[in-house]
Structure formats: structure tokens, C-alpha cells
């Protein structure tokens, strides 16, 4: 149950999509260019109504595809505007080429993204395959466990993107969060606007006194440096994200970090998970703790930049870890989050924990407390030596034949 933590906060009942649109209204970007796609459509639909009613000063560009949505958003940002968009799944896939260009040109675009499965087969429900596919695109990726986090993340994303000069996407799990009505605390417009501040780009195309060329061809003599700078900006973004979170906590009272540790500090077995499933897993952790089982959880909030060193430190003491991926990589080996976690541990010299990988919930397949309790049972058996950790991806709740 959400309680107000900010003196001037207001409790409202809103879906994930509604609350992301509400954050966009308060941020009031200069330009929004978007194209409808389930389950993210409502976000830009609600925002269009704000534009139609004159509630916001934003220009809304109802483009003819997601490729053009990202192209126009990139261009608006390069022109000097605070620019936003929203999409999901196939829409994000169609943007793929432009995602890399947004980050390569260091444009602080913010995107409201609703996680949905990728075709084929076509499926409109929630999994994280879409943004996992964009994990190397140079975008900061912020995942939300519920609507409150989605709202808070959108507000923080605006400042993070502009400070880091990196495009930033904030996600919710399709339907599970996007269409679920929850109680959310929103903050007054004036306080949100004060928190994000005015956008003042260093250079922009509409500055006629300082015309400049952006999007040059960059050959063997400079390209590598520019890509290095981008990678470095992503590394540097960790501290920016933490600074913004600290300021957010000071202003609005809610604490955010790169990831959330839930009963992790003394945990012997732990799950690593992203998004709404963390909420379900927390219920299981609590039940296990009541039984005296030292279960814990690590919920990744910031997946890009990946908090490698910090996570390795916080997982080093855990005896058995299950990394739960709501996306498969089809690499023939492991799913994305598992690969990042194991690489982080190995690089930090942490080799004690036994680590297993689970893929779950593709295409919106149910994941409930029983499924998660079974994962913890397996971890307990691994710790006691009753079971050998699997060295391949395991699948939860799937018919293999």
C-alpha cells in the first residue's frame, strides 16, 4: 500500500500508462513524436488530449511510424527541444536503427516504454524481450516494479538524460503495470518542474548565431573516439543516476538506487529479477523469512549502465543465486541478465555463489508465488548439496513438448 511520503503529495488511482502520461504532462516537453502500439498507446493518447486541451505547450507530432517517431524526436532534440516519445515491442524494434543514432549523437531523449513480447508469433503481452534487445544501444534503461516507480523514474529520467547527455528509457511491464490500476502518489506540477529544471542545451540547430553540423560522416580517424566517449558516458552515468536519486529522495522522500536489495544483506539464497515480478518475489521472501529461511532478493532498477562492481559486492556472500530473465537471448547459452551478473561476479573475483538461470513469463505467461517458491526451494537444495546447480537455462512454467 502506497502512503504519501511528500507533504504536498496526492494519492491518486492510476494505471501505469496513465501515470506515465501524467509525468509527461508535468515534464511538459517541447516536442513529443509518437506512434500508437499496444500496450503503450494510452500514454501518447492521453498526452495528445493534454495537447488538444492546451494543458501543455508541447508540439505533438503524430508520425506515420515508429522509425519516424524516433527520427523526429532525435531531430527535435538536436534542434534544441526537450523531446520525448513512447513505444513498445515492435515499435521499439522498428526504431532500432535510430536508437543507436540517438545515443551516438548524445541526445537526451526520454522514452516511456512498455515492455511487450517480440514477434513472431505476435503477442501483445508483457515480457522484456523488446528492451533487452536494445540493451547495447547506448540508452540508459530504467525498469519499474510498479506505477509509483514508473512515475518517479520518468521524473528522474529527464534530469539523468540531460546531465549524462544520454537517451533514457523508462519501462513498465506490459499490462501487468501498464493497465493495472494502483494507488500512486503524485507531486504538484510546480515541484516536479522545479525538480527537473529548464532544459538548456549547449549547442542546438535552431541557434542561428552558432550554426553547426551534426551527424557528420566520421571515419577511421575519429569514429572510435566518439564511440569510446559514448561508452565512457554510460560508465559515468552511474554517479549521475545516484546523484539525481539522492536529490529526488531529499525533495520527494522516496529512496532510489541502482538496484534494490530486499533482505539481501544476510541472505544465503537470492533471486535477481527485474520489474513487476520483484513484487511477487518479495511476498515469497517474506514467507520464507518467517520460516527462518535466509532468502533475499536483488531487483535491478538500472540495467544500463549495468552496476557491475556494486552488484558483485552485494551478491558475494550469497551461497546460491537464481537470475530470472523475462527474455531469452537465443544465444544457445544464457539469457541477458544472467550473462551480465555472472560476468560481473567473475570480474570482481567472486566465485563462491552457485548461480542458475531461469527464463520465465514470455508473452505474458503467468509467474506466481508458487513458481518463485520452487526456485527458492531449488536454491536451498543447491546450498545443502542435495541438488547440483544446472549449467544451462531452465524454463519456468513452459510445456517443453
Amino acid at each position, binding site marked *: 500500500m502506497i502512503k504519501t511520503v511528500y507533504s504536498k503529495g496526492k494519492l491518486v488511482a492510476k494505471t501505469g500508462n496513465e501515470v506515465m502520461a501524467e509525468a509527461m504532462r508535468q515534464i511538459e516537453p517541447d*516536442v513529443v513524436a509518437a506512434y500508437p502500439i499496444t500496450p503503450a498507446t494510452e500514454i501518447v493518447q492521453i498526452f495528445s488530449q493534454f495537447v488538444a486541451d492546451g494543458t501543455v505547450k508541447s508540439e505533438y507530432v503524430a508520425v506515420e511510424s515508429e522509425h*519516424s517517431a524516433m527520427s*523526429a524526436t532525435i531531430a527535435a532534440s538536436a534542434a534544441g527541444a526537450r523531446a520525448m516519445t513512447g513505444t513498445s515491442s515492435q515499435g521499439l524494434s522498428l526504431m532500432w536503427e535510430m536508437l543507436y543514432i540517438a545515443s551516438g549523437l548524445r541526445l537526451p531523449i526520454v522514452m516511456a516504454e512498455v515492455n511487450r513480447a517480440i514477434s513472431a508469433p505476435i503477442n501483445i503481452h508483457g515480457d522484456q524481450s523488446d528492451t533487452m534487445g536494445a540493451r547495447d544501444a547506448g540508452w540508459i534503461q530504467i525498469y519499474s516494479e510498479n506505477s509509483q516507480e514508473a512515475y518517479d523514474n520518468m521524473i528522474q529520467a529527464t534530469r539523468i538524460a540531460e546531465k549524462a547527455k544520454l537517451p533514457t528509457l523508462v519501462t513498465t511491464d506490459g499490462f501487468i503495470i501498464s493497465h493495472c490500476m494502483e494507488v500512486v502518489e503524485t507531486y504538484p506540477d510546480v515541484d516536479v518542474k522545479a525538480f527537473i529544471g529548464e532544459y538548456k542545451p549547449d549547442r542546438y540547430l535552431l541557434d542561428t548565431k552558432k*550554426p553547426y553540423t551534426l551527424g557528420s560522416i566520421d571515419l577511421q580517424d575519429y569514429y572510435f573516439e566518439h564511440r569510446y566517449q559514448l561508452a565512457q558516458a554510460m560508465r559515468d552515468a552511474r554517479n549521475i543516476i545516484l546523484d539525481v536519486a539522492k536529490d529526488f529522495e531529499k525533495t520527494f522522500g522516496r529512496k532510489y538506487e541502482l538496484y534494490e536489495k530486499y533482505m539481501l544483506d544476510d541472505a544465503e539464497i537470492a533471486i535477481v529479477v527485474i520489474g513487476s515480478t520483484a513484487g511477487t518475489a518479495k511476498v515469497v521472501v517474506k514467507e520464507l523469512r518467517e520460516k527462518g529461511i535466509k532468502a533475499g532478493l536483488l531487483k535491478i532498477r538500472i540495467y544500463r549502465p549495468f552496476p557491475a562492481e556494486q552488484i558483485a559486492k552485494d551478491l558475494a556472500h550469497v551461497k546460491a543465486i537464481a537470475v530470472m530473465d523475462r527474455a531469452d537471448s537465443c544465444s544457445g547459452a544464457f539469457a541477458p541478465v544472467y550473462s551480465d551478473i555472472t560476468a560481473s561476479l567473475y570480474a570482481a573475483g567472486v566465485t563462491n555463489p552457485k548461480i542458475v538461470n531461469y527464463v520465465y513469463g514470455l508473452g505474458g505467461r503467468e509467474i506466481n508465488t508458487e513458481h518463485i517458491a520452487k526456485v527458492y526451494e531449488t536454491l536451498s537444495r543447491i546450498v545443502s548439496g542435495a541438488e547440483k546447480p544446472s549449467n544451462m537455462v531452465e524454463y519456468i512454467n513452459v510445456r517443453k513438448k
Partner: protein
Amino acid sequence: MANLKELSKTPERLTSGHRLCAGCGAGIVARQALIAAGDTPVVVTSATGCLEVSTTIFPYTAWKTSFFHSAFENSAATCSGIEAAYKSLKAQGKVKDDIRFIAFGGDGGTYDIGLQSLSGAMERGHRMLYICYNNEAYMNTGIQRSGATPKGAHTTTAPAGKVHQGKEQNKKDLTQIMIAHNIPYVAQAYVGNWNDFVTKVQKALSINGPSFINILTPCRLGWNYKPEDTMNLARLAVTTCIWPAYEVDNGVYKINVKPKEKKPITEFLKLQGRFKHLFNTGNAHILEAIQKDVDEKWALLQRRAEAGCQA
């Protein structure tokens, strides 16, 4: 009608030193378009292509005005995003100047991969001028066939060989597709008539809405001719009526350059290496088919111009 004396005083906003080929029409198009804009600040976008790669090799730029490129298929969507930013920032008082927006694309980036983006931007009514510098093939990647490549032309993906004689299909009539968008101004122009082109650009920029100019831009490499013949070839395209210079201004057709004597199409084709094989024994029927098509389309355009509309 543009005044050459006045135009000559306009500061150059596409500087020399770019890496376009000798005899390239694209540089002429971009330079004249910016001269036509006079002192008005403009922001230029470009599709990936010869014009973009030759003028912006980092850390250099030939553009003295703001220039933006992001990808191949999105020059129009890109220009529309900049125009939207302008509208928003202007209304907020954050941008003071009156700025105009010009999007460039080659025929590949306009007729083919960028057609959806162009159509969307035109339909949405952004105040922008889209200029297609049309050299009738993908020249930047090495002369591949495009939707603008004319029938019979040899390209590297529709080559003339023992069985096939170059491109077998007619070119897409993109100008008509743009006219069907019912935008305020659409024109066809050609390199080699600065007055016609500059006048059209000025007219287009004065309109509060979208406009489109399709300018035939010979490519000495792809068309395979001597670099000094660029202007002549484009003029021959007009006098043979394979590329009429006309405009549709708020729905009203006007032929801007009427040839005194309509020359046979072979006068245009025979100067270009891309059509060389058409003059081989056994290919006369292709030349006849091209001539017939030119004649029919020219007659149709004349009827429309006389009627003043697309009747």
C-alpha cells in the same frame, strides 16, 4: 523571377572544399537552393547519400548554416521534427528568428526507402521544403537501380547483359505522387537553369506549408558522360521532354520551360554510357518504347497545363 545581380551578392552557405565529384549536380542544387533562401536563416537536413558524405567529413563541414543528418530513409521525418521544435520554441519565445527548413534527399532516399517518411511529413503539413536531387540511381553505393531509374538504363543491379537490356520497368512518377498529396506547391526542375530552380525554391519557401521540388541532377559517374556536360544533359532532358520543367501551384498546373523544338529522345540518350547498349542491333524497340512513353506523358502534361488542373 530571380535577379542574378542580387543573387550574386548573397553570401555562400555551401562553401567550396567539399568532396563531391567534378561535374556533380548535387552540389549545384544545394548551393543554388541556399542562395535562393537569401539571408533567411535555414536549417538543412539530408538523407544519407553523396551530398551528405561529401560535405560533412568530420571534423570539417561545407555548411555555413545548421545541417543535420541522422539516417538514410528519414530526411523528411527529421525535418518535421526540427520544424516541430521550432514551432514550440518560437511560441515560447525561446527562438526569435524566422527560420526556414529544407530537407534534401537523393532519389534512393526519396522515391524508395524514404517514401513513407516523406509522405507522412507532407500529409502532416509541416512548413518545409523537400528537395529531391534526383540522379536516377543509388549513386553513393555505386550506381544501383532505384525507383527513379528510367527504362533501359544500365545500373549495377539492373545491368545490360546478354539477356536483359538494363532496367525493364518505367520509373515511378514521384512528382505526381506528391501532387496527389494536395500540398500547396510541387515542382519539377533541372540542373542547368538557375533561374527556374531559384524561382521555384523562393516560391516554395514563401509558402506556409509543405512543398516539394524534384530536380533532375545528372551524375557524371552513374550516367557515364564527360563532367563538363552536366548542364547540357539536364537541358536536353527538358528539350526532349523526358523531364519536363513544370509546377503545380495550389493545384494549378504550369509548364515552366516549353521547348521551342521537341527533340527526339535519342539526342538525350546517346550522350550517356548508361544507355549505350540501347543503340545495339536488336534494341530499337526499346528506344521506340521510351519515345512513345515520353510522347504520351508530355501530351498528358500539356493537356493538364492547358486545363490548368489535373482534369
